[in-house]
């Protein structure tokens, strides 16, 4: 009975797949998953047959079976709570039995990345992942779009091409982005630009949905978006992949390529090169062109690393450039223009489709150079040192008179140096942890020559932190973690006050964070993760010193230099259950948080100027209470057929004002009908899904803060299909994605351009990927 429950729904898929057998496709793959550390079997390990779109979980004895497989090359990916995900490639020519080794709680030397190298990085924290296959489907979009379908995650948009992830209602610099194990600093500049990184340079995205300042430092209040880096090869041999995609909306496309290998004769030396680009014209809404929303993106990265069982070193460099147009109709002059735009219900400017990028437009460039060294001090203890330098440049070009449109109205350069030293240690077989020190030196400079007063002044920020995080395995099915961090920051601002005198105010912030969590396998079919953590965020310079007109929202924003750090405490409970003999999988996350000193903009009357009236907003602090639920379920109701549902609900109250909090995501539910089959002729790994996304109207909004009522509820229909086949030495995968198939006209509450235009209409994307060579 118990074993039956353990079986994942994919067993049922298999059972029917056997009914549609073709000759040569009746092989059975059996295996066991064993803990390398003590030789015990690992029950409830997750085993994925990549490429065949099959997955299963091991039973109590660590066993798993895939039946009805065609001969060919497969990639097995397997993981377990508290272990590093591993992959094994195998050539199937007949019935095969494999033994898979996972290292439980022992960090391998060849896990190069800080972010991926820890055992269970987020004990007790609710977290979700987007794997490579899922990322590929959404390869035509940015980071925010790739995680947007996850329960509890939404997107804060500024028009159709700028999006940033929102976790449990928090976004911007309340959500940390960790790219290649390094804090992505470009989010320091406000909400109207997306994280400057190419998500496809990573293999997997992990979204942590709890407060995580202990591990990641300031800003990780709502959660962390981690683009997990890929391990470098250690053995000689070349491998790579090529990918191309084209989309109907915006009439553009993109591609990326990756090549990696080891070096013959030098064991442990590996390299990787990767490049990508995207090129799109104006996006299309139902009924009109969203003029000036084209996009160009290009990026590349190179990594080289060497390691042996005692030590390793890695160098990494990446460059990412994005040049995009901002919806022309979103550029307005004053409050009257904004009211006219809302009243007309249509953008005031539309032009025939074009690839041109006109003003207003923004140009960003992100460069990251990273060096990492690690050394094993004993069999299990290791010391990891990471240094990273980030250079972020941002230029914005506005509609200006007198031929100034080619002179940036905003020209910022942000330099960030970070250094981290982490000691991973074992106090005993059951107690292990990390002790770390980190330091950051950041300088923001307004490049002269804009002819416009800067919105964000020059500043220098230095911060340092110390943290300790310990894990205890109480019994085999109970793991506890607790940690603490202390962090200080000194912020020097260099600016001119209203009387044009040069002032150099200094702000000092001292913060601490605590966390405690547990993973508990109550039964093999029921797992509980719970965590309570605190997080902090010192106010951003713009919240302290902003003073001026914000184009796009036609609002005057005024900072308050007396603001202090935000302090959050967040608790999450995550329950994962498997029922109906594996045919039903459920995951429910409950979360609640309290943020003291939550900084937000509050309306403060109107200012009458020669350009007309402008609403004035001031940065003020309040206390906020938030709670919500994310749920997902997948029910295999017939062999090969499954229903998948995902639900996100967040509620947030401004406790001092006694109102709802502004700009919180509306309730959302996504329902998919999924068809999966292992093969059809020479094709394999066939997956087809039709998805309906239901977004309710956000009725919980503060009175009198917005210029427009929240948009109506909407429903979108999407389609996703992919299929694969072996080709030569590699695998060819082809897929299609359909977005907003019914071309529904809608506006989203979290879109800052909802005042001006509808969101984008139907988009059909075709993609093809070819992977070759040995990993």
């Amino acid at each position, binding site marked *: 009975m118990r074993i039956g429950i353990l079986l994942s729904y994919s067993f049922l898929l298999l059972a029917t797949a056997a009914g549609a057998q073709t000759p040569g496709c009746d092989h059975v793959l059996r295996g066991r998953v064993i803990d390398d550390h003590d030789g015990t079997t690992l029950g409830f390990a997750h085993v994925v047959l990549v490429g065949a779109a099959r997955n299963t979980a091991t039973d109590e004895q660590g066993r798993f079976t895939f039946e009805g497989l065609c001969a060919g090359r497969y990639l097995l990916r397997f993981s377990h709570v508290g272990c590093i995900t591993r992959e094994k490639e195998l050539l199937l020519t007949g019935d095969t039995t494999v033994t898979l080794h996972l290292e439980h709680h022992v960090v391998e030397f060849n896990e190069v990345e800080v972010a991926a190298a820890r055992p269970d990085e987020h004990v007790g924290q609710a977290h979700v992942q987007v794997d490579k296959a899922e990322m590929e489907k959404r390869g035509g979009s940015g980071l925010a779009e790739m995680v947007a379908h996850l329960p509890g995650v939404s997107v804060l948009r500024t028009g159709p091409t700028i999006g940033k992830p929102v976790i449990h209602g928090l976004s911007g610099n309340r959500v940390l982005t960790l790219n290649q194990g390094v804090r992505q600093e470009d989010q320091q500049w406000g909400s109207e630009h997306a994280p400057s990184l190419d998500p496809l340079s990573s293999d997997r995205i992990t979204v942590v949905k709890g407060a995580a300042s202990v591990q990641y430092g300031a800003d990780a209040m709502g959660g962390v978006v981690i683009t997990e880096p890929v391990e470098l090869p250690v053995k000689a041999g070349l491998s790579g992949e090529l990918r191309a995609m084209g989309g109907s909306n915006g009439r553009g496309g993109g591609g990326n390529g990756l090549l990696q290998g080891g070096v013959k004769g030098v064991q442990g030396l590996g390299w990787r090169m990767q490049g990508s680009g995207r090129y799109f014209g104006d996006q299309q809404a139902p009924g009109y062109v969203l003029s000036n929303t084209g996009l160009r993106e290009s990026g590349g990265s190179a990594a080289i690393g060497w390691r042996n069982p005692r030590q390793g070193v890695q160098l990494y460099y990446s460059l990412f450039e994005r040049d995009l147009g901002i919806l022309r109709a979103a550029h307005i002059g004053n409050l009257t223009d904004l009211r006219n735009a809302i009243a007309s219900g249509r953008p005031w400017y539309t032009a025939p489709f074009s690839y041109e990028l006109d003003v207003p437009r923004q140009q960003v460039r992100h460069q990251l150079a990273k060096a990492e060294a690690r050394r094993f001090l004993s069999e299990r203890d290791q010391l990891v040192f990471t240094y990273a330098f980030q250079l972020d440049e941002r230029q914005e070009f506005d509609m200006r008179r007198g031929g100034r449109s080619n002179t940036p109205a905003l020209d910022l*350069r942000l330099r960030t140096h970070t250094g981290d030293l982490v000691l991973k240690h074992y106090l005993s077989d059951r107690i292990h942890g990390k002790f770390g020190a980190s330091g950051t030196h950041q300088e923001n400079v307004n490049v002269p020559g804009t*002819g416009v007063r800067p919105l964000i002044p020059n500043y220098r920020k230095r911060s340092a932190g110390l943290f300790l995080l310990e894990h205890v395995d109480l019994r085999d099915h109970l793991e506890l973690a607790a940690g603490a961090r202390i962090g200080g920051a000194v912020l020097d601002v*260099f*600016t*001119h006050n209203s009387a044009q005198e*040069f002032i150099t105010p200094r702000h000092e912030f001292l913060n601490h964070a605590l966390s405690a969590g547990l993973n508990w396998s109550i039964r093999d079919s029921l797992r509980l993760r719970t965590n309570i953590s605190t997080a902090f965020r010192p106010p951003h310079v713009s919240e302290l010193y902003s003073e001026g007109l914000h184009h796009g929202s036609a609002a005057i924003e005024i900072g308050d230099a007396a603001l202090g750090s935000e302090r959050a405490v967040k608790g999450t409970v995550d329950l994962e259950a498997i029922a109906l003999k594996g045919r039903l999988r459920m995951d429910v996350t409950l979360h609640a948080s309290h943020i003291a000193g939550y900084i937000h903009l509050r309306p*403060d009357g109107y200012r009458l100027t020669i350009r*007309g009236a402008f609403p004035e907003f001031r940065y003020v602090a309040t206390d906020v209470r938030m709670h919500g639920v994310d749920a997902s379920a997948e029910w295999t109701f017939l062999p090969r057929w499954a229903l998948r549902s995902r639900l996100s609900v967040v509620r947030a109250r401004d406790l001092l004002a006694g109102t709802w909090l502004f700009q919180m995501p509306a309730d959302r539910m996504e329902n998919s009908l999924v068809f999966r089959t292992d093969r059809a002729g020479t094709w394999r790994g066939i997956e087809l899904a039709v998805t309906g996304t239901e977004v309710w109207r956000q009725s919980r909004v503060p009175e009198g803060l917005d210029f427009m009522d929240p948009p109506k509820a909407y429903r979108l229909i999407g389609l996703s299909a992919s299929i694969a086949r072996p080709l030569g030495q590699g695998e060819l995968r082809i897929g299609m994605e359909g977005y907003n198939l019914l071309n529904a006209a809608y506006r989203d509450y979290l879109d800052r351009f909802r005042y001006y235009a509808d969101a984008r209409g139907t988009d059909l994307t075709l993609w093809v990927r070819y992977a070759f060579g040995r990993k």
Partner: protein
Amino acid sequence: MNTTLRIPMVLLIGATVLAGCKKDGDDPATPTPPVNEEELITDMYILFHDDDGNTYEWHASSDEGFHHEHGEGGEHEHEGELHIHGDDLPANKQLHAEIILLNRSVSPADTISHEVLDEGADHQFFFIAEDVDITFAYEDADDNGRPIGLLSGWQTGASGSGHVEVILRHQPNKEAAGVSGGDITNAGGVTDLSVEFPAVIQ
């Protein structure tokens, strides 16, 4: 242990070198002096003359953008920022109006109306009378023969008092219905100026 230390040392030295590679103007501690907003319009003059040689003047000036008082208490503290002054206009007269736009935040003051004239096809003034009897006619044209409004004719009617709203739109659609005739309804574009003058006809 030696190599353990050596690698971080090399990285640190590299970091220092990188940190040292700075271009001019990259030191945050020496920001450029306060930038005077180049395109700011601080003053709008409407200079009237009639055929008899009488002159009248309307003037609006704004502190916005280069001077700001921090005061106590919210809503009213900025009220004084827009200063408006206007001569009374004579009744039943044909007046010729010329608009001059200045940026006084730079020294010497910049005449922004020259930029408007240079980019005439991208600009248009609109005049809207409320509770006062004035009819407007454009007396200038851009390269396409469509009005700009830097020069206009104002035909005043009977005595009375009300308001005249003067609006400058950047990149209006001058081809849309009624726009070249002075109707702002379909003009679109971005508002660069919007001032409501109290108007008295004597």
